[in-house]
């Protein structure tokens, strides 16, 4: 067991950058994204017995991040309905470079998507997952992934299409 744990820990360190990237597509605030990853790592280590070593650790971790995020957004939505939260635009302070502007515009466009579509975009377009793999992480049929992705692309196309960069 100790040996297996070490192997998982090594793999986790390897995929941490990708876990951070996935979390970043869900929450635009990088600190929140790292909180999410940390929580997911802690959860994963506490329930390692649920992980099948012959399956993909990254997919399992994405699923844990996803569930943690769903828990959080539910609480957050309720908070927002109860109390007005004025912190939009916290990332828009210094648009230093063209790359930064490009990133902000994509982030802003992604933020317009419903949660379920954003997760498909994160897994397929950013992470490069096949539809089937994304469907497994999200626990939905592959047809659902396809239709969510198609709708998300339509929205993104409308927001980002045409000229490169520029805030929508």
């Amino acid at each position, binding site marked *: 067991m100790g040996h297996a744990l070490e192997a998982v*820990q090594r793999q*986790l*360190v390897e995929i*941490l*950058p*990708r876990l*951070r*990237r996935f979390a*970043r*597509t869900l*929450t635009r*605030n990088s*600190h*929140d994204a*790292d*909180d*999410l*990853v*940390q*929580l997911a*790592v*802690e*959860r994963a*280590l*506490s329930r*390692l017995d649920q992980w099948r070593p012959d399956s993909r650790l990254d997919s399992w971790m994405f699923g844990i991040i996803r569930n*943690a995020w769903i*828990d*959080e957004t539910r*609480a*957050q939505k*309720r*908070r927002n*309905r*109860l*109390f*007005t939260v004025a*912190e939009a635009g916290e990332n828009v302070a210094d648009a230093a470079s063209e790359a930064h502007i*490009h*990133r902000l*515009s*994509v*982030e802003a466009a*992604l933020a317009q998507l419903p949660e379920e579509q954003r997760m498909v*975009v994160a897994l*397929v*377009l*950013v992470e*490069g997952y*096949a*539809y089937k793999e994304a469907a497994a992480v999200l626990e939905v049929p592959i047809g659902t992934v*396809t*239709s969510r*992705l*198609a709708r998300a*692309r339509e929205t*993104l*196309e409308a927001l*980002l*299409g045409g000229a490169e960069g520029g805030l929508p």
Partner: protein
Amino acid sequence: MSIPDEKLMAYADGELDAVERAQVEAAIDADPSLARRVEKHRALRSKVSSAYASVLDEPVPERLLNAVRGAPAAARDDRVVDAGRAPVARSRDRMATRAASWSWPQWLAIAASVAVGVVVGRGVLTSPRPSIGTESGKLVAQAALDDALTNQLASEQSRSAPVQIGVSFRAKGGELCRTFSIRQADTLSGVACREASSWSVRVLARAEGAQTQPGNYQQAGSGMPAAVRAAVEAQIADEPLDAAAEMAAQKNGWK
């Protein structure tokens, strides 16, 4: 031959098998507009993925590496907040989240201490008819506060009413609760919950900073002291009541 956009998208994403791929490619040969649509899908994909590429190059924060190294048994004892709690809330509103693990008895203790310190000094318990009194050791609403909690609807209240009702909600224990603000020299805010035949004041605190915005339903929460917000967040069972549900609850005697 017409090709549905979802199929073109799947083609652009490399999702089709050899047979379908051949069909799409034949269609593209016959219709250049299809090629442009495929190109659009690919361009969007690279636009989105390139936006996040730099995250991979960022140094991974030490705390995440530590989280990986921390064996499952080595739970950190310096954490007030349960690891199962929302991470974003933890960073955004630590107080509220920490409060979320408190139960009513703890809030009652706070209410009691605040009440002694604040309320007694401010006339709510004295002239002319006190709005809050004690009943077998509990704080209960009386007079104008009792009247407002029982009869006043947040959606219809007058801006000049001395007691303003904020949100109404069902607590985890099943009882209906309402937040309120009493405007006097100072504004006091709190949470009261319906028990048998009276409103039990569970949390009471002095409003922070400026006066609360009277009559503004949307603003009801933002002027509330953190302790009140946190108590609501901790104790709300589901969603706050909307105007129709609030009216229905009132008709039903807040049961």
